[in-house]
């Protein structure tokens, strides 16, 4: 009997140990469950706070931009009238300074407009109309609007299209803005050179590109070009009259159209910005 009793005792001990281990595991599971729930709740709270902060930022930008625009319009009008001699005789010297003032006021206005555009895009409040648009037509029009500016910089500006038409469901004004920003940008950094605007119609998407033979962007700056308030290549040349927001806007608009934007560049050789517009089914 004795060996059997010992075996039973041993079994009981073993069972007790197993029970303890099971109790520990059950306690552990409960605690782990509780802890994970708590941490998720904390994450959700943080997310909510971030969203609220983001909204606050957008509201702030919106309000400030509107408040800034109104007085700026008045200032511009008065300077223009002074410059034209409407408010009394103006000397040539004064006219020169007033022209500088006007230029800076216009620059400020552009920055505010861009900030407003970006704030709208970021907050998802930008109106996005989908209609059948011909991207070749848009490119042609934008090129025409830049013709005299290109001539002034002795730069050849031409379009190259794979077909006579490239139709997608897109927001016409926004796609126009992408071309305006990219061609304007290319022209800023190109003199005595060439700018080519390409539109290639594909089955699922339209591929577009704006290439220039300008001074290019340094490799270390390339990852930052789509960031806000980024301006490059100004160290060796005159400060350009940009806002540093144009390419951020391009990126937002292209992504709004489910497309991708890319940049390739070589210092001294030129830059190519390319982007796609997905042919989104209408709806």
């Amino acid at each position, binding site marked *: 009997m004795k060996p059997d009793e010992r075996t039973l005792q041993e079994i009981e001990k073993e069972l007790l140990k197993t029970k303890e281990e099971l109790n520990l595991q059950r*306690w552990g599971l409960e605690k782990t469950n509780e*802890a994970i729930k708590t*941490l998720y709740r904390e994450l959700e709270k943080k997310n909510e706070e971030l969203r609220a902060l983001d909204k606050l930022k957008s509201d702030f930008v919106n309000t400030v931009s509107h408040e800034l625009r109104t007085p700026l319009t008045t200032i511009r009008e008065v300077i223009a009238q002074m410059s034209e001699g409407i408010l009394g005789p103006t000397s040539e010297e004064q006219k020169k300074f007033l022209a500088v003032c006007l230029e800076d006021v216009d620059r400020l206005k552009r920055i505010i407009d861009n900030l407003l555009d970006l704030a709208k895009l970021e907050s998802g409040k930008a109106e996005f109309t989908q209609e059948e648009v011909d991207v070749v037509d848009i490119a042609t029009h934008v090129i025409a609007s830049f013709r005299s500016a290109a001539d002034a910089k002795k730069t050849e500006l031409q379009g190259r299209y794979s077909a006579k038409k490239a139709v997608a469901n897109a927001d016409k004004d926004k796609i126009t803005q992408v071309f305006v920003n990219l061609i304007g940008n290319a022209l800023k950094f190109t003199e005595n050179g060439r700018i080519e605007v390409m539109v290639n119609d594909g089955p699922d998407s339209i591929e577009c590109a704006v290439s220039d033979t300008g001074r290019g962007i340094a490799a270390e700056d390339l990852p930052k070009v789509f960031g806000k308030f980024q301006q490059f290549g100004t160290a060796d040349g005159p400060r350009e009259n940009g806002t540093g927001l144009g390419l951020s806007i391009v990126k937002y608009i292209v992504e709004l159209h489910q497309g991708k934007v890319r940049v390739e560049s070589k210092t001294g050789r030129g830059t190519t910005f390319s982007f796609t517009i997905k042919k989104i089914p209408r709806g």
Partner: protein
Amino acid sequence: MSKKILIVEDNDDDLFIMKRYLAEAGFDNIVSASDAASGVQKAREEKPDIVISDTLLPGSNGFEVCAEIRAALGAEKPKIIITTGSIDAVDAVKAKKAGADDYCAKASDCAPLLAAMKKIT
């Protein structure tokens, strides 16, 4: 006199929040350490009633701090609570095996910690 508490926590913000909520709950006798080694040393010197240790600490972790304090001061006192702010580091069984009395996640209102404090005091 209120119980002496040692908090081992390397994040200043978390420490500040814990101190505030614990003081509000009546625990105002608090000492702290910001890494594992000084945590164990403070435990030996101060002989706290309760230790609250973070899981991820410079130089070591809360489980080891817990085991070392147990080895140095015995199985009964202090009571030890291990906390965590990182989902990757959640391991209640490991905390228990290291000798902890309770285990909970960090929250911005310290509710789980205060509940655990209530249970052990």
